[in-house]
Structure formats: structure tokens, C-alpha cells
């Protein structure tokens, strides 16, 4: 880019509102009772699911944010992958998408062109159609999508059906927020950023496809509330989890950056929100930060019975990005990290 513009101010899912503030506001909104609304904001799920027929429901979601990388095309790819992810986390199939664009009046429109190109190619890869969108002038760049998908009502992966004893599989490494933050202040290595970008721009489609043959009890995608935040949503009020600290996958350099406190405000908000529901049995500050770190376009967090988990893991390991079994669901409310 020729212009000396501050394209990237710390965006991606580090720009999300904190979970506490959000839920208090959402609780106050009027709600209509409709039995066709299969998934709404009661269950802290990623998208809305509405039944049209006995065998058909639509999945609706949207995501947009400021850039977390310098390159506009890459930003477009990541923003689109992130928005599309919610459909896969539900077990649905992508159908259409609409652009959501904010762009400063005086910026070079070629930049916007590259963002949109990145987004549209990702939608195409997902098998969907980019059918239009809406753009406004704004002080900063923001981009994302509103996505519509379809699903059979009986085959929705709600994110809160996990059972004690279920194993937890994570399909992408953590630490993306920390690495992009380090990059923003010029401290990230080329390798670390490459890993982060690869992870963020990979669709969860491929992992989701392999999940279909298994009795998945719960599934969500890991984004702005960090692994622990999304795990908390998944376990809800009646369940908890134990995570095996050694098994948690993350971009290696993220540990060093966390030790240098190259961490986000959003990570701290996530930590505040979860409070003492989280219990660290190991003294490991960088790992704590990694677990609270907001992920942009993160992987799927899947809960399923142990035997199935082993088989699914074997299948997932044929994909370019490694998955891992990171823990199990418990009947206790706490989220314990061993």
C-alpha cells in the first residue's frame, strides 16, 4: 500500500465486546416465543437456526471486524473464513453470503477491491454464492459477511449437548490473537505470522465434513472469547471440563510473546468474565494467556464420546492443520487446567 494509513489497529476478534457486557444487554431485549426458532440467543450459540419445514432449517450468522493483518486480500480471506465458520460449527451447509463493508472515504479503492476479492474467493471455496452486500463510509476499515446456510433440524450440533466423559477435540492451534498482536508492534517472526494466517484463513469446512459420521454431542468454533470462553459456553451451567495443559496446541512463538506481555485487552476481558470458574492447577502464566487469547477464525471445539474421539482424531490428522484431544467434559462446573 502506498498510503501511510494505519490499516491494522488491532482488529479481528480482539475487537469484540466483552462477554459479560453483551449478555447483560441481550437479556434485556424483548423475545418472541416461536417454536420454530431452534437455536437463538438463549443457548449462546454461534448462529440462529430457524425451522422452515420438518426436514429443513436455515442457519443465519454474521461476523465483521477491523483488520488484523496488513495485506487486504489476506484480510478478506480471513474475515470470510471467520464468518463462514459459524455455519460449519452448527453442522450446516453454506448457501449464500452478503458483504458487510466499512471503508474510509479517502482511502484507495483498490484496497477495498483486494479485500472483496479475498472474501469472494473464500466464499467460493466454501461452496457458497456471494450475492451482494452493503457498504458505508467509516473512519476505519471493517469487513465481514452475513452468511446463510441450511441444515436438517435433527442434525444440528448445538454447542451445549456435551456429556461428562466426552473428549474435547480442538482442530486449530491457539495463540493467533497473541501472534497478530505481537506483529502489530513489530515483534512477531515471519514463521509465527505465517502459521497464524494459515490457521485463520483455513475454512472449518474440512474438519466439519469429517465430523458428520460421528455422534458429536457438542460443537462450537473458537473465536473472540478464547478457548476458555467458548468452552464455558459449551459446558453451560451444568458441566465443566478438565484440560490437559501438555496437549493444548498453540503456535510455539505465542508462548514467548505472552511472556513478554504482548497480550490483548480482549484477553483480559475474557479472563475477567470467567473469573474463578477457571482453575489453573499448573503455574504457567503464558499458557493462561493463550487459553484466554481471542482467536480470529479459530478451529472447532468438538465434544464426543472417547472411542469416537480417537477415530475422528485419526481422520482429522489427514488435514494440513493438526488437531488434538485437549481434555474432557466433567460433571463439575469448574474449568480445570492440569
Amino acid at each position, binding site marked *: 500500500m502506498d498510503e501511510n494509513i494505519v490499516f491494522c*489497529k*488491532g482488529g479481528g476478534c480482539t475487537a469484540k465486546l466483552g462477554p459479560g457486557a453483551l449478555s447483560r444487554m441481550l437479556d434485556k431485549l424483548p423475545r418472541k416465543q416461536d417454536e420454530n426458532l431452534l437455536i437463538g440467543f438463549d443457548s449462546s450459540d454461534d448462529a440462529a437456526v430457524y425451522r422452515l419445514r420438518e426436514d429443513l432449517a436455515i442457519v443465519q450468522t454474521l461476523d465483521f471486524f477491523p483488520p488484523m493483518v496488513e495485506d487486504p486480500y489476506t484480510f478478506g480471506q480471513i474475515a470470510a473464513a471467520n464468518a463462514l465458520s459459524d455455519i460449519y460449527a452448527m453442522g450446516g451447509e453454506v448457501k449464500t453470503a452478503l458483504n458487510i463493508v466499512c471503508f474510509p472515504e479517502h482511502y484507495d479503492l483498490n484496497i477495498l477491491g483486494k479485500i472483496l476479492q479475498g472474501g469472494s474467493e473464500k466464499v467460493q471455496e466454501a461452496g457458497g454464492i456471494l450475492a451482494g452486500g452493503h457498504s458505508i463510509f467509516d473512519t476505519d476499515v471493517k469487513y465481514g459477511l452475513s452468511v446463510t446456510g441450511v441444515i436438517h433440524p435433527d442434525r444440528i450440533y448445538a454447542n451445549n449437548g456435551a456429556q461428562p466423559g466426552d473428549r474435547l477435540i480442538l482442530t486449530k492451534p491457539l495463540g493467533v490473537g497473541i501472534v497478530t*498482536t505481537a506483529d502489530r*508492534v513489530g515483534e512477531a517472526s515471519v514463521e509465527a505470522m505465517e502459521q497464524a494466517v494459515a490457521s485463520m484463513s483455513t475454512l472449518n469446512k474440512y474438519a466439519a465434513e469429517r465430523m458428520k459420521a460421528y455422534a458429536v454431542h457438542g460443537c462450537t468454533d473458537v473465536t473472540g472469547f478464547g478457548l476458555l470462553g467458548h468452552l464455558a459456553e459449551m459446558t453451560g451451567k451444568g458441566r465443566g471440563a478438565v484440560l490437559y495443559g501438555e496437549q493444548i496446541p498453540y503456535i510455539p512463538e505465542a508462548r514467548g510473546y505472552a511472556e*513478554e*506481555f*504482548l*497480550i*490483548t*485487552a480482549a484477553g*483480559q*476481558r475474557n*479472563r*475477567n468474565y470467567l473469573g*474463578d470458574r477457571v482453575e489453573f492447577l499448573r503455574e504457567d*502464566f503464558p499458557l493462561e494467556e493463550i487459553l484466554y487469547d481471542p482467536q480470529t477464525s479459530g478451529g472447532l471445539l468438538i465434544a464426543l464420546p472417547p472411542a469416537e474421539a480417537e477415530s475422528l482424531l485419526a481422520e482429522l490428522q489427514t488435514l494440513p492443520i493438526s488437531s488434538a484431544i485437549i481434555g474432557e467434559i466433567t460433571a463439575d462446573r469448574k474449568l480445570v487446567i492440569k
Partner: protein
Amino acid sequence: MKQMIRVDARGDQCPVPVIKTKKALQELGGAGSVEVHVDNEIAVQNLEKMASVKQLSCHSEKLAERDYRVVITAGEPEAPAKEAEQGRTAEVCGPDRQNRTVVAISSALMGTGNEELGKVLLKGFLYALAQSETLPSAVLFYNGGVQLTTADSESLEDLKELEGQGVEILSCGTCLSYYELTGQLMVGEVTNMYTILEKLQEADKIIKP
């Protein structure tokens, strides 16, 4: 006069306030303090987190709606952080003291039976306690127990060791007076029944050898 570096990080997004503060601390190169101004509470918390992990003392206050002042001090024996939101208190180097275990020494002897043996056992117990990795928050001495904190005690070194590690050594004033040991207290402080009761009530665990 100790050095003080001022950092204005208002308008900066995390992690910039922390990075600026780290740099300022490095510039200090030893004793001194860094005063950082930030415009939001989350930045304050991230600074406190850093201070805690680096075992530096840290105080913060809100000056105005979008002006918080955080002072981090280096090169001093650090004080426990006042704002411990995450349950992470800045710790003095030493074994774990975040538990609320209280030891109650109610006699100069440990166990019933032979008296000589009882004295030896209690001495051994206090020695082992002083060497232990998990220290209690307080040791209470009452009735015959006050003989362990006064002039002729053979356990003074161990009790002073415990005191040095931040364990409260408390001896019942009434008991000292009864045994005519007032003024012969060699370690810790004099206490009363209210405090003894309070300590026992608040304890998660009470050890009575």
C-alpha cells in the same frame, strides 16, 4: 532520590501500554518507579498482571473518567498488590502462603504421656514446620504454649524463621501474664482471645499437634 519515569499511554491500545512500561522499567536499570497513565481499566489490569508476574509492587488509582494512574516500583522489597482481581497477588519470594492454615499450640508438650518426650516432640514439630514448603498463615500459642515463644524456649530460631517468612506468631497475653512471662516474649506479638477466636474461625484448616 529515586528515579521516576512517566509514561503516557492514554489512547494506546493493549499491549502498547505494557510495552511502554516494560521499556521504562528497563531504562530505570534498577531501583525507581514508572508512572503510567492509561485511559481504561483493562489496561490497568494488564499492567497489574505484568507487575505481579515480575514480582514488582504496583498501585493504581482512577483520576478521572478516562485517566488511570498506575505506579510500578522496582528495586524494593515488594508489597502485596492491592488490586488482586485475578487472585494473583504479588508474592514475597518464599514458599506458598496463600492458604489459611492455622496451627494452634495449646501446651508446651506434644501428646500425652511422658513429659520429656512431649517437649522433644513439640520442638521437633516446630522445626519441621519451619522447614516445610507449605507454611501456615499463623501459629497461635496459648496456655502452656507461650513457653515456646519466650526466653527459655528452644524453638526460638525456628519460630523466628517462620516469622521471617511472613507467618504470624501470636502469643496469648493472658497466658503470658499468668506464667509471669510478660516482657519475655522473644518472637512475634501478643494477642488476645478475640484474635485467637477470629483466626481459628477464619481458618480453612486448623492443625493442633
